[in-house]
């Protein structure tokens, strides 16, 4: 359903300030914590302080109103645990308890809850609950989880493996035999927190007047949450309304179904007052789904002229204690396997994945999901191959990339790369960064100096807005892939757009308004966009997988097109002309001989339908969008980083960072650039700063912003961004997703740049975050290896 943008005035392509800004700039946003809920009881969860243990007893304090404290036993009759299932062969399910029973499996796992008039009082009360846990040895680090003597997270399993997958395309052994050079590398991306600045938040109230349970949650997936709550609480969906108000970011941390949501919803049905839980930062660092924790062993083979002949990948992911719904613990590993071939013409590929259980918090989606790991694995390898062959790493990329004449191209992992010029993005990145100048400066550095310059690149393809079949291929039991929109024209001639998608801060109220403007030629700010309320909006799956603009935008365009047809029919009736002679200009229906404003037209049609006898009633349209190509629309980019490395301290200074990317037709450059810069900032956090450290007992050691370092204003340079706009042939307006790309490449680009800076010493940067200590260690290792040799 390719549709060219027609007007490009205020609509698609316009760099417009966001409609959301006004309320936030005056402190008028309404987040869950800001809701005025008379009589609300604030909830504090009591959580496990040990990573692994037998839960022997949970004892309530004496003399306290029992209804203010809930244990697993109290909650069990009203809520089922959530079991994320998968169709992958051999997958082991691990039901996610709402409150722990029998065993605790990570620090932060909810054990009981207490409620009171304020959070402080609820915490006081929770502190009186006596929890008896017999601590067990914990399975923690990715290196040890499959050891025969490793503690087992789930007693009934024979090992700690959620699932294993493998695949072979072509013949890697033949490739190896033909290769001029083969290298093997081991990489590790350490565990990260997602850190939306607004923590998770849930409130629930049972409205007895209309028999409706209202659940407010800071969730990216309100419709999915409603469906699952109905299942787990065993009540009909019609009695459940989920509202996601303003959200302080999500980035994937808020698109799984959580025990806290289930518990509060279930309890609200049993009490006479609203209940609310606002996660504190410690909870957010230990109990919100986490990310990465990948380990790779890659062997790659190349010909003397720099052609990539074959890749073997062993992928291990430490997925934590449980599978979260609907993604499951295999999400990262299976996606990584599919994304390692990246933008390259690869004919021989073999992979094995292990999704492993541990006594850490469950892994969930985080911007980029597995792609930062896959990108790191292949892009670090490309650089080292290029070095072995004496090629510029960018040149090695250009030689191996899918070229525009092959588009649309089906990758070795059977993904359809729809459009674009991948090698050109690399070439432009070298120009954007002034590559030759940096090489000159690098060469000019005195050998005796203690600071080195490096430049590094990383390229990737970003799968966005994929359909049901893609999700099914990954084993998901819930195959997501359709998005609804309803557009209503009211009697004043104003539009309200109801969408099933949820904007968690990315400006959909603006960009979807621009889509409507594209059809009706109106001011986008005059469109009210209603999102995040299951009682008001048509069904949609939510915001994740860089799908919102393509899919909700596609749905909005579909609804607008249908409504436009009807409005033109009404106009034709009123103006006594043929509808084909009419069009939309500046909020009017205009023909050769005259026109009528949308407000006049709407009044005529809605107040006196008898004046328009030939058109059916209703001034609205509903449309459900699904992708034409199920593997989605592929955005791509090349990132480049320039660093200066201190040889004595291992400190890395980021001197420059550039992005050349192609997300197809850009709907709003201000917003797309914001997505890229914000994504890169998070990626730089992955690359240089952010690490959730767990000790051997599974105790998290970085549970506050004092010891978990986030990028601040000083750490993120002013970015250089260049857009290539190749419209996708398969989407409305040629849009492709832009939400995650920024976060994918920075770890690889930075590690390549630091490795480049240290080439004379042979130090390889193969682990993130690239802390001064790791750089220094890499130099020591290289030094030892040189001395041994």
């Amino acid at each position, binding site marked *: 359903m390719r549709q060219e943008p027609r007007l490009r005035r205020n609509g698609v392509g316009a760099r417009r*300030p*966001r409609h*959301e*800004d*006004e*309320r*936030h*700039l*005056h*402190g*008028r*946003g*309404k*987040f869950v*914590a*800001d809701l*005025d809920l008379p009589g609300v009881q604030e909830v504090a969860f009591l959580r496990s302080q040990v990573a692994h243990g037998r839960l022997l007893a949970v004892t309530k304090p004496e003399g306290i109103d029992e209804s203010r404290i809930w244990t697993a036993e109290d909650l069990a009759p009203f809520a089922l645990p959530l079991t994320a299932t998968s169709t992958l062969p051999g997958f082991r399910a691990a039901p996610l308890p709402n409150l722990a029973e029998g065993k605790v499996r990570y620090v932060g796992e909810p054990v009981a809850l207490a409620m009171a008039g*304020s959070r*402080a009082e609820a915490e006081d009360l929770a502190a009186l609950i006596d929890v008896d846990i017999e601590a067990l040895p914990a399975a923690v680090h990715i290196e040890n989880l499959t050891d025969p003597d490793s503690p087992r997270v789930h007693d009934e399993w024979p090992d700690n493996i959620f699932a294993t997958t493998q695949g072979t395309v072509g013949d890697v052994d033949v490739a190896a035999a033909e290769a001029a050079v083969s290298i093997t590398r081991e990489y590790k991306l350490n565990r990260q927190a997602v*850190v*939306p*600045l*607004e*923590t998770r938040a849930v409130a629930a109230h049972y409205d007895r007047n209309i028999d409706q349970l209202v659940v407010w949650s800071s969730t990216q997936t309100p419709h999915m949450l409603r469906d699952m709550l109905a299942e787990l609480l065993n009540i009909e969906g019609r009695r459940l309304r989920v509202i996601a108000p*303003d*959200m*302080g*970011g999500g*980035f994937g941390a808020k698109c799984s179904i959580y025990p806290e949501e289930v518990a509060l919803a279930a309890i609200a049905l049993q009490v006479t007052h609203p209940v609310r839980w*606002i996660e*504190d*930062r410690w909870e957010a660092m230990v109990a919100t789904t986490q990310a990465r924790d990948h380990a790779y062993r890659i062997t790659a083979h190349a010909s003397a002229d720099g052609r990539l002949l074959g890749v073997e990948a062993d992928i291990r992911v430490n997925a934590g204690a449980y599978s979260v719904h609907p993604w499951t613990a295999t999400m990262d590993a299976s996606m990584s396997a599919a994304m390692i071939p990246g933008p390259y013409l690869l004919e021989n590929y073999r992979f094995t994945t292990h999704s492993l259980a541990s006594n850490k918090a469950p892994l969930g989606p985080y911007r980029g999901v597995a792609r930062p790991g896959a990108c790191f694995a292949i892009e670090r390898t490309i650089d080292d191959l290029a070095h072995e062959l004496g090629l510029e790493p960018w040149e090695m990329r250009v030689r191996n990339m899918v070229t525009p004449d092959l588009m649309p191209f089906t990758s070795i992992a059977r993904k359809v790369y729809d459009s674009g010029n991948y090698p050109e993005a690399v070439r432009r990145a070298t120009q954007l960064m002034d590559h030759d100048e940096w090489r000159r400066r690098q060469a000019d550095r005195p050998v005796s100096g203690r600071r080195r310059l490096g430049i590094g690149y990383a390229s990737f393809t970003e799968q966005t807005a994929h359909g049901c079949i893609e999700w099914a291929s990954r084993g998901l039991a819930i195959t997501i892939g359709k998005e609804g929109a309803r557009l209503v024209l009211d009697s004043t001639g104003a539009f309200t757009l109801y969408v099933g998608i949820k904007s*968690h*801060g*990315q*400006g959909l109220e603006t960009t979807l308004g621009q889509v409507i403007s594209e059809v009706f030629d109106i001011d986008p700010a005059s469109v009210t966009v209603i999102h995040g309320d299951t009682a008001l909006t048509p069904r949609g799956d939510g915001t994740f997988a860089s799908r919102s603009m393509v899919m909700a935008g596609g749905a909005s365009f579909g609804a607008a097109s249908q409504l436009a047809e009807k409005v033109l029919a009404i106009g034709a009736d009123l103006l006594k002309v043929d509808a084909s002679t009419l069009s939309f200009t500046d909020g009017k229906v205009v023909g050769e001989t005259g026109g009528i404003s949308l407000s006049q037209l709407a009044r005529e049609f809605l107040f006196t339908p008898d004046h328009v006898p030939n058109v059916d009633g209703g001034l609205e349209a509903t449309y459900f969008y699904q992708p034409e190509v199920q593997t989605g629309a592929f955005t791509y980019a090349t990132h480049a980083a320039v660093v200066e490395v201190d040889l004595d301290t291992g400190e890395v200074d980021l001197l420059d960072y550039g992005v050349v990317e192609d997300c197809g037709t850009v709907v709003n450059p*201000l*917003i797309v*650039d*914001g997505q890229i*810069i*914000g*994504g*890169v*900032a*998070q990626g730089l956090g992955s690359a240089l700063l952010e690490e959730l450290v767990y000790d051997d007992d599974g105790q998290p050691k970085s549970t*506050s*912003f*004092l010891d978990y370092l*986030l*990028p*601040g*204003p*000083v750490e*993120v340079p*002013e*970015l250089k961004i260049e857009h290539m706009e190749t419209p996708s042939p398969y989407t409305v307006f040629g849009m492709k997703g832009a939400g995650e790309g*920024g976060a994918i490449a920075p770890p690889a680009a930075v590690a390549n740049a630091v490795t480049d800076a240290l080439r004379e010493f042979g130090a390889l940067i193969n682990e993130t975050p690239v802390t001064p200590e790791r750089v220094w260690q890499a130099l020591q290792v290289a030094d030892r290896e040189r001395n041994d040799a």
Partner: protein
Amino acid sequence: MSTVTVKVNVNGTPRTIEVESRTSLADLLRDRVRLTGTHLGCEQGVCGSCTVLMDGLPVRSCLTLAASCDGAEVVTVEGLDDADAHRLRQHFSTEGALQCGFCTSGMLVTGYELVRRRTEMDRDQVACALAGNICRCTGYNGIIRAVQKANDDGMAVDDLT
């Protein structure tokens, strides 16, 4: 639980409020004055979302005890309404300085106090001055540009009224 009575001027309105002794300024503002524009991002004094002005200087309202504000003048994001605040907001919007809006209140309050100093600042100085505020969405580029532009505007008019 012991209580204290706090006389505090909030956004120009004098108030007398009895709170539990352990109550933070943030909770007083949010729960008692119902000014929810002041956001709590970490309650550890690091993220800066809860920044308000106390007697003209930015403070972390999450770490400031309400009891310590007796006699103080407090200004929250809702109370910023002069020409500097207006210019700051304009630049925030056009420079892409906000996305989810959660850190925005703290950024505005910190940025406002900076702009009111009427000191020339380059990009690095603005970035350093904002280093106590975390934004997870924007990557800071827009925020730094917005504050710098509002500062340049303020310097040009040099009018603190």
